[in-house]
Protein backbone atom coordinates (compact mmCIF):
# COMPACT_ATOMS: atom_id res chain seq x y z
CA UNK A 1 0.00 0.00 0.00
CA UNK A 2 1.16 3.48 -0.75
CA UNK A 3 2.52 5.81 1.86
CA UNK A 4 -0.32 8.25 1.71
CA UNK A 5 -2.82 5.41 1.52
CA UNK A 6 -1.58 4.07 4.80
CA UNK A 7 -1.53 7.56 6.13
CA UNK A 8 -5.14 8.08 5.15
CA UNK A 9 -6.14 4.78 6.72
CA UNK A 10 -4.51 5.88 9.91
CA UNK A 11 -6.17 9.20 10.04
CA UNK A 12 -9.45 9.08 8.21
CA UNK A 13 -11.33 6.40 10.06
CA UNK A 14 -14.61 7.71 11.37
CA UNK A 15 -14.61 8.93 14.88
CA UNK A 16 -16.73 7.20 17.38
CA UNK A 17 -18.58 9.65 19.57
CA UNK A 18 -15.99 10.22 22.24
CA UNK A 19 -16.89 12.95 24.59
CA UNK A 20 -19.78 14.79 23.03
CA UNK A 21 -18.52 17.94 24.73
CA UNK A 22 -18.91 19.92 21.54
CA UNK A 23 -22.44 18.70 21.00
CA UNK A 24 -23.40 19.37 24.58
CA UNK A 25 -22.05 22.91 24.33
CA UNK A 26 -23.84 23.30 21.03
CA UNK A 27 -27.16 22.35 22.59
CA UNK A 28 -26.84 24.83 25.43
CA UNK A 29 -28.90 28.00 25.45
CA UNK A 30 -27.08 30.85 23.74
CA UNK A 31 -26.31 32.76 26.94
CA UNK A 32 -24.68 29.89 28.79
CA UNK A 33 -22.88 28.80 25.66
CA UNK A 34 -21.32 32.17 25.17
CA UNK A 35 -20.43 32.60 28.84
CA UNK A 36 -18.72 29.23 28.74
CA UNK A 37 -16.76 30.23 25.64
CA UNK A 38 -15.83 33.55 27.26
CA UNK A 39 -14.71 31.74 30.40
CA UNK A 40 -12.58 29.40 28.31
CA UNK A 41 -10.94 32.26 26.44
CA UNK A 42 -10.23 34.16 29.66
CA UNK A 43 -8.63 31.09 31.21
CA UNK A 44 -6.45 30.77 28.13
CA UNK A 45 -5.28 34.35 28.51
CA UNK A 46 -4.43 33.53 32.11
CA UNK A 47 -2.19 30.67 31.02
CA UNK A 48 1.08 32.38 32.10
CA UNK A 49 -0.20 32.14 35.67
CA UNK A 50 -1.26 28.50 35.45
CA UNK A 51 1.82 27.18 37.28
CA UNK A 52 0.64 29.03 40.37
CA UNK A 53 -2.67 27.12 40.48
CA UNK A 54 -2.30 24.17 42.94
CA UNK A 55 -2.84 20.90 41.03
CA UNK A 56 -2.83 22.26 37.50
CA UNK A 57 0.43 24.04 38.23
CA UNK A 58 2.23 20.82 39.15
CA UNK A 59 0.84 19.18 36.02
CA UNK A 60 1.75 21.79 33.44
CA UNK A 61 4.82 23.45 34.88
CA UNK A 62 8.06 22.91 33.06
CA UNK A 63 10.84 22.37 35.58
CA UNK A 64 14.14 23.73 34.39
CA UNK A 65 12.73 26.26 31.93
CA UNK A 66 10.39 29.16 32.24
CA UNK A 67 6.81 28.07 31.61
CA UNK A 68 6.12 31.54 30.25
CA UNK A 69 8.91 31.09 27.75
CA UNK A 70 7.66 27.68 26.67
CA UNK A 71 4.14 28.86 25.99
CA UNK A 72 5.29 31.93 24.07
CA UNK A 73 8.21 30.55 22.12
CA UNK A 74 6.76 27.18 21.34
CA UNK A 75 3.17 26.42 22.28
CA UNK A 76 1.54 29.43 20.65
CA UNK A 77 3.57 29.04 17.49
CA UNK A 78 3.06 25.28 17.20
CA UNK A 79 -0.66 25.66 17.74
CA UNK A 80 -0.88 28.25 14.99
CA UNK A 81 1.16 26.08 12.65
CA UNK A 82 -0.92 23.01 13.48
CA UNK A 83 -4.09 24.95 12.70
CA UNK A 84 -2.73 25.88 9.29
CA UNK A 85 -1.38 22.44 8.49
CA UNK A 86 -4.70 20.95 9.57
CA UNK A 87 -6.40 22.79 6.73
CA UNK A 88 -4.07 21.16 4.22
CA UNK A 89 -3.74 17.70 5.73
CA UNK A 90 -6.86 17.31 7.80
CA UNK A 91 -9.51 19.06 5.76
CA UNK A 92 -8.34 18.74 2.19
CA UNK A 93 -6.38 15.53 2.78
CA UNK A 94 -3.18 16.69 1.07
CA UNK A 95 -0.08 15.25 2.68
CA UNK A 96 2.37 18.13 3.08
CA UNK A 97 5.82 17.23 4.39
CA UNK A 98 7.42 20.61 3.77
CA UNK A 99 5.20 22.87 5.76
CA UNK A 100 8.17 24.40 7.55
CA UNK A 101 8.90 26.13 4.24
CA UNK A 102 5.93 28.46 4.63
CA UNK A 103 6.81 29.10 8.25
CA UNK A 104 10.30 30.06 7.07
CA UNK A 105 8.93 32.29 4.30
CA UNK A 106 6.85 34.19 6.86
CA UNK A 107 9.77 34.62 9.24
CA UNK A 108 12.22 35.60 6.50
CA UNK A 109 9.84 38.14 4.99
CA UNK A 110 9.70 39.93 8.33
CA UNK A 111 13.47 39.64 8.62
CA UNK A 112 14.14 41.05 5.19
CA UNK A 113 11.65 43.89 5.44
CA UNK A 114 12.37 44.98 8.99
CA UNK A 115 16.11 44.50 9.25
CA UNK A 116 18.05 43.16 6.30
CA UNK A 117 16.90 45.47 3.52
CA UNK A 118 14.39 47.88 5.01
CA UNK A 119 13.23 49.18 8.32
CA UNK A 120 9.52 48.62 8.17
CA UNK A 121 7.75 48.21 11.50
CA UNK A 122 6.77 44.67 12.48
CA UNK A 123 3.06 45.37 12.19
CA UNK A 124 3.44 46.41 8.54
CA UNK A 125 5.57 43.35 7.82
CA UNK A 126 2.95 40.90 9.11
CA UNK A 127 0.30 41.33 6.41
CA UNK A 128 3.01 41.43 3.74
CA UNK A 129 4.56 38.26 5.11
CA UNK A 130 1.18 36.53 5.17
CA UNK A 131 0.59 37.48 1.55
CA UNK A 132 4.08 36.39 0.52
CA UNK A 133 3.57 33.01 2.23
CA UNK A 134 0.23 32.68 0.53
CA UNK A 135 1.88 33.42 -2.80
CA UNK A 136 4.49 30.78 -2.00
CA UNK A 137 1.64 28.34 -1.40
CA UNK A 138 0.10 29.18 -4.75
CA UNK A 139 3.44 28.97 -6.54
CA UNK A 140 4.18 25.59 -5.00
CA UNK A 141 0.62 24.37 -5.41
CA UNK A 142 -0.06 25.31 -9.01
CA UNK A 143 2.26 22.76 -10.57
CA UNK A 144 2.23 20.18 -7.78
CA UNK A 145 -1.43 19.85 -6.88
CA UNK A 146 -1.95 17.89 -10.06
CA UNK A 147 -0.02 15.19 -8.26
CA UNK A 148 -1.62 12.98 -5.71
CA UNK A 149 -0.73 11.19 -2.54
CA UNK A 150 2.84 10.04 -2.32
CA UNK A 151 4.05 12.22 -5.16
CA UNK A 152 2.67 15.35 -3.55
CA UNK A 153 4.28 14.38 -0.26
CA UNK A 154 7.67 14.03 -1.93
CA UNK A 155 7.42 17.32 -3.80
CA UNK A 156 6.41 19.23 -0.68
CA UNK A 157 9.24 17.57 1.20
CA UNK A 158 11.55 18.98 -1.44
CA UNK A 159 10.00 22.42 -1.14
CA UNK A 160 10.78 22.65 2.57
CA UNK A 161 14.38 21.79 1.89
CA UNK A 162 14.65 24.16 -1.07
CA UNK A 163 13.58 27.08 1.09
CA UNK A 164 16.08 26.25 3.81
CA UNK A 165 18.98 25.61 1.45
CA UNK A 166 18.23 28.68 -0.64
CA UNK A 167 18.23 30.81 2.48
CA UNK A 168 21.52 29.25 3.44
CA UNK A 169 23.09 30.16 0.10
CA UNK A 170 21.53 33.54 -0.60
CA UNK A 171 23.69 36.37 0.66
CA UNK A 172 20.81 38.82 0.47
CA UNK A 173 18.99 36.62 2.99
CA UNK A 174 21.97 36.70 5.28
CA UNK A 175 23.27 33.30 4.22
CA UNK A 176 24.03 30.91 7.02
CA UNK A 177 24.56 33.81 9.43
CA UNK A 178 20.88 34.61 9.15
CA UNK A 179 19.20 37.90 9.95
CA UNK A 180 19.43 39.68 13.26
CA UNK A 181 17.83 42.76 14.81
CA UNK A 182 14.42 41.92 13.47
CA UNK A 183 11.71 44.38 14.49
CA UNK A 184 9.54 43.49 17.45
CA UNK A 185 5.82 44.08 17.78
CA UNK A 186 4.87 47.62 18.87
CA UNK A 187 3.99 48.27 22.47
CA UNK A 188 0.28 48.39 23.11
CA UNK A 189 -0.49 50.42 26.25
CA UNK A 190 0.87 48.48 29.20
CA UNK A 191 2.02 45.60 26.99
CA UNK A 192 5.72 46.21 26.43
CA UNK A 193 7.34 43.83 23.99
CA UNK A 194 10.80 43.51 25.46
CA UNK A 195 13.21 40.78 26.44
CA UNK A 196 12.27 40.64 30.09
CA UNK A 197 8.60 39.86 29.85
CA UNK A 198 7.33 37.17 27.51
CA UNK A 199 3.66 37.63 28.38
CA UNK A 200 2.84 40.29 25.77
CA UNK A 201 4.06 37.94 23.03
CA UNK A 202 1.87 35.22 24.44
CA UNK A 203 -1.19 37.46 24.47
CA UNK A 204 -0.50 38.52 20.91
CA UNK A 205 -0.06 34.93 19.73
CA UNK A 206 -3.19 33.81 21.51
CA UNK A 207 -5.11 36.62 19.87
CA UNK A 208 -3.83 35.50 16.47
CA UNK A 209 -4.99 31.96 17.26
CA UNK A 210 -8.46 33.11 18.24
CA UNK A 211 -8.84 35.13 15.04
CA UNK A 212 -7.61 32.21 12.93
CA UNK A 213 -9.98 29.78 14.67
CA UNK A 214 -12.87 32.15 14.11
CA UNK A 215 -12.10 32.48 10.39
CA UNK A 216 -11.41 28.79 9.88
CA UNK A 217 -14.72 27.87 11.50
CA UNK A 218 -16.48 30.00 8.94
CA UNK A 219 -14.66 28.27 6.13
CA UNK A 220 -15.31 24.80 7.54
CA UNK A 221 -19.03 25.46 7.69
CA UNK A 222 -19.31 26.67 4.13
CA UNK A 223 -19.22 25.44 0.59
CA UNK A 224 -15.44 25.63 0.82
CA UNK A 225 -15.25 23.29 3.81
CA UNK A 226 -17.61 20.85 2.14
CA UNK A 227 -15.53 20.88 -1.01
CA UNK A 228 -12.36 20.19 1.02
CA UNK A 229 -14.01 17.31 2.81
CA UNK A 230 -15.31 15.88 -0.44
CA UNK A 231 -11.83 16.06 -1.99
CA UNK A 232 -10.37 14.30 1.02
CA UNK A 233 -12.99 11.57 1.00
CA UNK A 234 -12.94 10.81 -2.72
CA UNK A 235 -11.27 13.18 -5.10
CA UNK A 236 -12.59 11.60 -8.30
CA UNK A 237 -16.15 11.44 -7.04
CA UNK A 238 -15.88 15.04 -5.87
CA UNK A 239 -14.77 16.21 -9.28
CA UNK A 240 -17.54 14.26 -10.97
CA UNK A 241 -20.00 15.91 -8.60
CA UNK A 242 -18.91 19.27 -9.94
CA UNK A 243 -16.31 20.29 -7.36
CA UNK A 244 -13.48 22.24 -8.95
CA UNK A 245 -11.00 20.12 -7.07
CA UNK A 246 -7.88 21.90 -8.25
CA UNK A 247 -9.18 25.32 -7.24
CA UNK A 248 -10.19 24.20 -3.77
CA UNK A 249 -6.98 22.27 -3.22
CA UNK A 250 -5.07 25.39 -4.18
CA UNK A 251 -7.13 27.42 -1.72
CA UNK A 252 -6.36 24.91 1.02
CA UNK A 253 -2.68 25.21 0.21
CA UNK A 254 -2.77 29.00 0.11
CA UNK A 255 -4.70 29.33 3.36
CA UNK A 256 -2.52 26.77 5.09
CA UNK A 257 0.56 28.61 3.85
CA UNK A 258 -0.79 31.95 5.03
CA UNK A 259 -1.32 30.64 8.56
CA UNK A 260 2.11 29.01 8.54
CA UNK A 261 3.58 32.35 7.46
CA UNK A 262 1.70 34.14 10.22
CA UNK A 263 3.27 31.77 12.74
CA UNK A 264 6.63 32.60 11.18
CA UNK A 265 6.13 36.34 11.70
CA UNK A 266 5.34 35.72 15.34
CA UNK A 267 8.48 33.65 15.73
CA UNK A 268 10.68 36.23 14.01
CA UNK A 269 9.19 39.03 16.10
CA UNK A 270 9.86 37.14 19.30
CA UNK A 271 13.35 35.73 18.83
CA UNK A 272 14.46 38.68 16.62
CA UNK A 273 17.17 36.54 15.07
CA UNK A 274 16.67 33.87 12.48
CA UNK A 275 18.96 31.68 10.44
CA UNK A 276 18.37 28.70 8.16
CA UNK A 277 19.04 26.16 10.89
CA UNK A 278 15.85 27.33 12.63
CA UNK A 279 13.84 25.68 9.89
CA UNK A 280 14.96 22.07 9.60
CA UNK A 281 13.01 19.26 7.99
CA UNK A 282 12.53 17.81 11.46
CA UNK A 283 10.22 20.69 12.23
CA UNK A 284 7.94 19.73 9.31
CA UNK A 285 7.70 16.23 10.71
CA UNK A 286 7.01 17.56 14.18
CA UNK A 287 4.26 19.82 12.84
CA UNK A 288 2.68 16.88 11.05
CA UNK A 289 3.00 14.83 14.23
CA UNK A 290 1.16 17.59 16.07
CA UNK A 291 -1.78 17.43 13.67
CA UNK A 292 -1.96 13.63 13.58
CA UNK A 293 -1.52 13.35 17.33
CA UNK A 294 -4.23 15.89 18.04
CA UNK A 295 -6.70 14.50 15.54
CA UNK A 296 -6.46 15.04 11.80
CA UNK A 297 -9.28 17.17 10.52
CA UNK A 298 -10.39 18.43 13.89
CA UNK A 299 -9.47 22.02 14.68
CA UNK A 300 -9.56 21.46 18.45
CA UNK A 301 -7.47 18.37 17.94
CA UNK A 302 -4.89 20.36 15.99
CA UNK A 303 -4.76 22.96 18.75
CA UNK A 304 -4.29 20.35 21.45
CA UNK A 305 -1.79 18.42 19.33
CA UNK A 306 0.28 21.52 18.65
CA UNK A 307 0.28 22.43 22.32
CA UNK A 308 1.21 18.94 23.48
CA UNK A 309 4.01 18.49 20.96
CA UNK A 310 5.45 21.87 21.89
CA UNK A 311 5.09 21.49 25.62
CA UNK A 312 5.83 17.85 26.30
CA UNK A 313 9.60 17.85 25.66
CA UNK A 314 9.89 20.82 28.02
CA UNK A 315 7.75 19.13 30.66
CA UNK A 316 10.09 16.16 30.58
CA UNK A 317 13.26 18.19 30.89
CA UNK A 318 13.79 16.45 34.23
CA UNK A 319 14.74 13.34 32.26
CA UNK A 320 17.71 15.27 30.89
CA UNK A 321 19.05 13.70 27.71
CA UNK A 322 16.42 10.95 27.82
CA UNK A 323 13.63 13.46 27.37
CA UNK A 324 13.42 13.03 23.62
CA UNK A 325 13.04 9.31 24.21
CA UNK A 326 10.27 9.90 26.74
CA UNK A 327 8.61 12.24 24.28
CA UNK A 328 8.79 9.58 21.56
CA UNK A 329 7.33 6.92 23.83
CA UNK A 330 4.53 9.27 24.82
CA UNK A 331 3.71 9.91 21.15
CA UNK A 332 3.69 6.20 20.36
CA UNK A 333 1.43 5.48 23.33
CA UNK A 334 -1.04 8.11 22.22
CA UNK A 335 -1.10 6.69 18.70
CA UNK A 336 -1.61 3.17 20.04
CA UNK A 337 -4.48 4.04 22.30
CA UNK A 338 -6.01 6.82 20.23
CA UNK A 339 -5.11 6.09 16.62
CA UNK A 340 -7.43 8.84 15.41
CA UNK A 341 -5.74 11.36 17.64
CA UNK A 342 -6.54 12.93 20.96
CA UNK A 343 -9.68 14.65 19.66
CA UNK A 344 -10.74 12.75 16.54
CA UNK A 345 -12.64 14.29 13.71
CA UNK A 346 -16.34 14.10 14.31
CA UNK A 347 -19.11 13.53 11.87
CA UNK A 348 -20.56 16.98 11.79
CA UNK A 349 -24.17 17.03 12.76
CA UNK A 350 -25.65 20.38 12.06
CA UNK A 351 -27.57 21.90 14.90
CA UNK A 352 -30.70 22.45 12.84
CA UNK A 353 -30.79 18.76 12.03
CA UNK A 354 -30.96 17.71 15.67
CA UNK A 355 -34.48 19.05 15.90
CA UNK A 356 -35.50 18.05 12.42
CA UNK A 357 -38.35 15.52 12.21
CA UNK A 358 -38.83 13.34 9.14
CA UNK A 359 -42.03 14.16 7.27
CA UNK A 360 -44.97 11.79 7.63
CA UNK A 361 -44.82 10.71 4.01
CA UNK A 362 -41.36 9.18 4.18
CA UNK A 363 -41.74 5.73 2.64
CA UNK A 364 -40.48 3.05 4.94
CA UNK A 365 -38.31 0.41 3.42
CA UNK A 366 -37.43 -2.72 5.25
CA UNK A 367 -33.77 -2.97 4.53
CA UNK A 368 -31.27 -4.59 6.76
CA UNK A 369 -29.30 -2.02 8.66
CA UNK A 370 -25.91 -2.90 7.31
CA UNK A 371 -22.99 -1.37 9.06
CA UNK A 372 -24.80 0.13 11.97
CA UNK A 373 -24.42 -0.64 15.61
Amino acid at each position, binding site marked *: MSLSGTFKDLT*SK*PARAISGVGERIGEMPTVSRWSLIALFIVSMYLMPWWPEVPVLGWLVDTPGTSFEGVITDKVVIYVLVALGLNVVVGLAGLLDLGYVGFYAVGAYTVGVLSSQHANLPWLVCVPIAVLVSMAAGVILGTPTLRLRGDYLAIVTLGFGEIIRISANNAEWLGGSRGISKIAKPPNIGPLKFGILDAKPYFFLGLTFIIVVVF*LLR*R*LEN*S*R*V*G*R*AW*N*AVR*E*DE*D*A*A*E*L*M*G*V*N*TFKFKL*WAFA*IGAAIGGLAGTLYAGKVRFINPSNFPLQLSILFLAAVVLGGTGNMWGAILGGAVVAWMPERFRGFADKRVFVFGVALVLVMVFRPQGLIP*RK*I*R*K*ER*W*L*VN*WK*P*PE*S*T*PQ*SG*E*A*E*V*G*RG
Partner: protein
Amino acid sequence: MADTVLSVDNVTMQFGGVTALSDVTFGIMRGEILGLIGPNGAGKTTCFNVITGVYTATSGAVTFDEQPLAGLKRFQITKRGIARTFQNIRLFPDMTAIENVMVGVDVNHKTSVGGALIGSRRHHREEREGRDKAMELLTFMGIADRAGDAARNLPYGYQRRLEIARALATKPKLLCLDEPAAGFTPAEKQELMDLIRRIRAQGYTVLLIEHDMSLVMGVTDRIVVLDFGKIIATGSPAEVQNNPDVIAAYLGVPDDAA
Protein backbone atom coordinates in the same frame (compact mmCIF):
# COMPACT_ATOMS: atom_id res chain seq x y z
CA MET B 1 -33.30 14.98 -34.29
CA ALA B 2 -34.07 18.34 -32.81
CA ASP B 3 -34.42 17.36 -29.22
CA THR B 4 -31.41 15.22 -28.69
CA VAL B 5 -29.85 15.94 -25.31
CA LEU B 6 -26.74 13.91 -25.82
CA SER B 7 -25.28 12.38 -28.88
CA VAL B 8 -22.36 10.01 -28.96
CA ASP B 9 -20.84 9.96 -32.44
CA ASN B 10 -18.47 7.29 -33.65
CA VAL B 11 -16.74 7.04 -30.31
CA THR B 12 -13.82 4.65 -30.13
CA MET B 13 -11.94 4.07 -26.93
CA GLN B 14 -8.73 2.12 -26.84
CA PHE B 15 -6.58 1.19 -23.88
CA GLY B 16 -3.30 0.15 -25.36
CA GLY B 17 -4.21 -2.73 -27.62
CA VAL B 18 -7.64 -3.27 -26.11
CA THR B 19 -10.56 -1.66 -27.85
CA ALA B 20 -13.21 -1.06 -25.20
CA LEU B 21 -15.55 0.88 -27.46
CA SER B 22 -15.57 0.66 -31.18
CA ASP B 23 -17.36 3.21 -33.31
CA VAL B 24 -20.25 3.66 -30.91
CA THR B 25 -23.02 6.00 -32.01
CA PHE B 26 -26.27 6.71 -30.24
CA GLY B 27 -28.36 9.60 -29.03
CA ILE B 28 -30.57 10.33 -26.07
CA MET B 29 -33.80 12.26 -26.51
CA ARG B 30 -34.92 14.78 -23.95
CA GLY B 31 -37.21 13.20 -21.37
CA GLU B 32 -36.59 9.59 -22.24
CA ILE B 33 -35.17 6.73 -20.25
CA LEU B 34 -32.52 5.05 -22.34
CA GLY B 35 -31.18 1.71 -21.24
CA LEU B 36 -27.59 0.75 -21.99
CA ILE B 37 -27.21 -2.98 -21.60
CA GLY B 38 -24.77 -5.69 -22.47
CA PRO B 39 -22.92 -8.62 -20.98
CA ASN B 40 -20.02 -8.14 -18.59
CA GLY B 41 -17.13 -6.30 -20.16
CA ALA B 42 -19.23 -5.01 -23.04
CA GLY B 43 -18.06 -1.44 -22.46
CA LYS B 44 -21.07 0.05 -20.69
CA THR B 45 -19.17 1.72 -17.89
CA THR B 46 -16.43 2.80 -20.30
CA CYS B 47 -19.13 4.49 -22.32
CA PHE B 48 -20.28 6.30 -19.14
CA ASN B 49 -16.75 7.32 -18.38
CA VAL B 50 -16.30 8.80 -21.83
CA ILE B 51 -19.55 10.76 -21.51
CA THR B 52 -18.70 12.12 -18.05
CA GLY B 53 -15.13 13.01 -19.00
CA VAL B 54 -13.30 10.40 -16.94
CA TYR B 55 -11.74 9.16 -20.18
CA THR B 56 -10.99 11.06 -23.33
CA ALA B 57 -12.21 9.12 -26.33
CA THR B 58 -9.53 7.91 -28.73
CA SER B 59 -11.68 9.16 -31.56
CA GLY B 60 -15.21 10.38 -32.06
CA ALA B 61 -17.18 13.08 -30.31
CA VAL B 62 -19.70 13.51 -27.55
CA THR B 63 -22.13 16.38 -27.99
CA PHE B 64 -24.30 17.58 -25.14
CA ASP B 65 -27.00 20.18 -25.61
CA GLU B 66 -25.53 20.93 -29.02
CA GLN B 67 -22.11 21.69 -27.50
CA PRO B 68 -19.09 19.42 -27.85
CA LEU B 69 -17.80 18.10 -24.54
CA ALA B 70 -14.26 17.58 -25.77
CA GLY B 71 -11.67 19.44 -23.74
CA LEU B 72 -13.95 20.14 -20.79
CA LYS B 73 -12.85 19.14 -17.32
CA ARG B 74 -14.97 16.67 -15.42
CA PHE B 75 -16.45 19.21 -13.06
CA GLN B 76 -17.29 21.46 -15.99
CA ILE B 77 -19.20 18.64 -17.63
CA THR B 78 -21.15 18.20 -14.41
CA LYS B 79 -21.86 21.92 -14.39
CA ARG B 80 -23.17 21.67 -17.94
CA GLY B 81 -25.71 19.17 -16.68
CA ILE B 82 -24.51 15.58 -16.72
CA ALA B 83 -24.56 13.84 -13.36
CA ARG B 84 -23.82 10.25 -12.58
CA THR B 85 -23.78 7.55 -9.97
CA PHE B 86 -21.18 4.84 -9.66
CA GLN B 87 -21.30 1.12 -10.10
CA ASN B 88 -19.32 0.74 -6.90
CA ILE B 89 -20.83 3.24 -4.51
CA ARG B 90 -18.58 6.24 -4.15
CA LEU B 91 -20.11 8.49 -1.56
CA PHE B 92 -18.12 10.71 0.76
CA PRO B 93 -18.17 8.16 3.59
CA ASP B 94 -17.32 10.39 6.54
CA MET B 95 -19.72 13.14 5.59
CA THR B 96 -23.35 13.05 6.61
CA ALA B 97 -26.01 12.13 4.07
CA ILE B 98 -27.17 15.71 3.87
CA GLU B 99 -23.65 17.02 3.36
CA ASN B 100 -23.16 14.54 0.53
CA VAL B 101 -26.19 15.97 -1.20
CA MET B 102 -25.17 19.55 -0.41
CA VAL B 103 -21.90 18.98 -2.26
CA GLY B 104 -24.06 18.29 -5.29
CA VAL B 105 -26.21 21.36 -4.73
CA ASP B 106 -23.04 23.45 -4.46
CA VAL B 107 -22.41 22.97 -8.17
CA ASN B 108 -24.77 25.83 -8.87
CA HIS B 109 -23.43 27.98 -6.03
CA LYS B 110 -20.74 30.61 -6.22
CA THR B 111 -19.62 31.35 -2.67
CA SER B 112 -15.90 30.87 -2.33
CA VAL B 113 -13.34 31.66 0.33
CA GLY B 114 -14.01 35.39 0.42
CA GLY B 115 -17.75 35.08 0.78
CA ALA B 116 -17.46 32.42 3.45
CA LEU B 117 -14.93 34.44 5.47
CA ILE B 118 -16.99 37.61 5.62
CA GLY B 119 -20.25 35.65 5.88
CA SER B 120 -21.75 37.32 2.85
CA ARG B 121 -25.44 37.43 2.22
CA ARG B 122 -24.98 35.12 -0.73
CA HIS B 123 -23.19 32.62 1.49
CA HIS B 124 -26.13 32.52 3.91
CA ARG B 125 -28.67 32.33 1.11
CA GLU B 126 -26.81 29.49 -0.59
CA GLU B 127 -26.37 27.58 2.66
CA ARG B 128 -30.08 27.82 3.39
CA GLU B 129 -30.95 26.88 -0.16
CA GLY B 130 -28.51 23.98 -0.01
CA ARG B 131 -30.10 22.56 3.12
CA ASP B 132 -33.63 22.93 1.85
CA LYS B 133 -32.83 21.46 -1.52
CA ALA B 134 -30.86 18.59 0.01
CA MET B 135 -33.58 17.81 2.51
CA GLU B 136 -36.16 17.90 -0.25
CA LEU B 137 -34.15 15.44 -2.31
CA LEU B 138 -33.54 13.12 0.61
CA THR B 139 -37.26 13.13 1.29
CA PHE B 140 -37.98 12.46 -2.37
CA MET B 141 -35.64 9.48 -2.26
CA GLY B 142 -37.19 8.30 0.99
CA ILE B 143 -34.03 8.50 3.06
CA ALA B 144 -34.53 11.73 4.96
CA ASP B 145 -34.82 9.91 8.30
CA ARG B 146 -31.07 9.28 8.23
CA ALA B 147 -30.04 12.71 6.95
CA GLY B 148 -27.67 13.35 9.84
CA ASP B 149 -25.87 10.02 9.71
CA ALA B 150 -22.49 9.49 8.12
CA ALA B 151 -22.86 8.00 4.66
CA ARG B 152 -20.72 5.04 5.66
CA ASN B 153 -23.18 4.09 8.39
CA LEU B 154 -26.19 3.96 6.10
CA PRO B 155 -27.70 0.68 4.97
CA TYR B 156 -26.76 -0.41 1.48
CA GLY B 157 -30.05 0.53 -0.12
CA TYR B 158 -29.86 3.97 1.45
CA GLN B 159 -26.37 4.46 0.09
CA ARG B 160 -27.52 3.62 -3.43
CA ARG B 161 -30.37 6.09 -3.17
CA LEU B 162 -28.16 8.71 -1.57
CA GLU B 163 -25.93 8.52 -4.64
CA ILE B 164 -28.91 9.24 -6.85
CA ALA B 165 -29.97 12.12 -4.57
CA ARG B 166 -26.47 13.58 -4.76
CA ALA B 167 -26.49 13.35 -8.55
CA LEU B 168 -29.95 14.92 -8.76
CA ALA B 169 -28.76 17.77 -6.55
CA THR B 170 -26.62 19.07 -9.39
CA LYS B 171 -29.83 19.71 -11.37
CA PRO B 172 -28.71 17.55 -14.27
CA LYS B 173 -30.22 17.63 -17.71
CA LEU B 174 -29.03 14.07 -18.05
CA LEU B 175 -28.84 11.64 -15.16
CA CYS B 176 -26.59 8.65 -15.71
CA LEU B 177 -27.21 5.69 -13.42
CA ASP B 178 -24.57 2.98 -13.41
CA GLU B 179 -26.20 -0.27 -12.27
CA PRO B 180 -28.27 1.34 -9.55
CA ALA B 181 -29.97 -1.95 -8.72
CA ALA B 182 -26.79 -3.96 -8.18
CA GLY B 183 -27.20 -6.08 -5.10
CA PHE B 184 -30.90 -5.33 -4.69
CA THR B 185 -33.59 -7.86 -3.91
CA PRO B 186 -36.45 -8.15 -6.42
CA ALA B 187 -38.69 -6.09 -4.12
CA GLU B 188 -36.09 -3.36 -3.89
CA LYS B 189 -35.64 -3.45 -7.64
CA GLN B 190 -39.35 -2.90 -8.06
CA GLU B 191 -39.13 0.08 -5.73
CA LEU B 192 -36.20 1.44 -7.70
CA MET B 193 -38.10 1.14 -10.97
CA ASP B 194 -40.90 3.23 -9.50
CA LEU B 195 -38.33 5.73 -8.33
CA ILE B 196 -36.74 6.02 -11.76
CA ARG B 197 -40.15 6.60 -13.28
CA ARG B 198 -40.83 9.29 -10.71
CA ILE B 199 -37.51 10.90 -11.51
CA ARG B 200 -38.42 10.98 -15.16
CA ALA B 201 -41.84 12.39 -14.30
CA GLN B 202 -39.97 15.34 -12.75
CA GLY B 203 -38.57 16.09 -16.17
CA TYR B 204 -35.19 14.42 -16.04
CA THR B 205 -33.63 12.45 -18.86
CA VAL B 206 -32.12 9.20 -17.68
CA LEU B 207 -29.38 7.02 -19.08
CA LEU B 208 -29.51 3.69 -17.28
CA ILE B 209 -26.86 1.02 -17.32
CA GLU B 210 -28.29 -2.18 -16.06
CA HIS B 211 -27.53 -5.81 -15.96
CA ASP B 212 -30.92 -7.01 -14.85
CA MET B 213 -33.00 -7.51 -17.97
CA SER B 214 -36.36 -7.40 -16.23
CA LEU B 215 -35.57 -4.01 -14.72
CA VAL B 216 -34.43 -2.59 -18.03
CA MET B 217 -37.40 -3.98 -19.91
CA GLY B 218 -39.85 -2.61 -17.39
CA VAL B 219 -38.63 0.94 -17.16
CA THR B 220 -36.83 2.04 -20.31
CA ASP B 221 -38.26 3.61 -23.46
CA ARG B 222 -35.42 2.55 -25.67
CA ILE B 223 -32.46 0.26 -25.32
CA VAL B 224 -28.96 0.24 -26.77
CA VAL B 225 -27.19 -3.10 -26.54
CA LEU B 226 -23.41 -3.24 -26.42
CA ASP B 227 -21.30 -6.32 -26.87
CA PHE B 228 -17.50 -6.31 -27.05
CA GLY B 229 -17.55 -2.56 -27.45
CA LYS B 230 -19.91 -2.53 -30.42
CA ILE B 231 -23.56 -1.66 -30.62
CA ILE B 232 -25.36 -4.80 -31.69
CA ALA B 233 -28.93 -3.60 -31.39
CA THR B 234 -31.02 -0.51 -30.73
CA GLY B 235 -34.76 -0.30 -30.28
CA SER B 236 -37.69 -0.62 -27.98
CA PRO B 237 -37.46 -3.19 -25.17
CA ALA B 238 -39.69 -5.59 -27.09
CA GLU B 239 -37.63 -5.32 -30.25
CA VAL B 240 -34.37 -5.81 -28.44
CA GLN B 241 -35.69 -8.73 -26.47
CA ASN B 242 -36.40 -10.70 -29.63
CA ASN B 243 -33.25 -9.69 -31.48
CA PRO B 244 -31.26 -12.86 -32.22
CA ASP B 245 -27.91 -11.07 -31.84
CA VAL B 246 -28.87 -9.91 -28.36
CA ILE B 247 -30.00 -13.36 -27.36
CA ALA B 248 -26.76 -14.76 -28.67
CA ALA B 249 -24.71 -12.19 -26.79
CA TYR B 250 -26.47 -12.87 -23.52
CA LEU B 251 -26.98 -16.59 -23.72
CA GLY B 252 -24.14 -17.55 -26.01
CA VAL B 253 -24.35 -19.38 -29.32
CA PRO B 254 -24.50 -23.14 -29.47
CA ASP B 255 -21.26 -24.65 -30.78
CA ASP B 256 -22.80 -26.25 -33.83
CA ALA B 257 -24.45 -22.98 -34.89
CA ALA B 258 -21.29 -20.92 -34.59
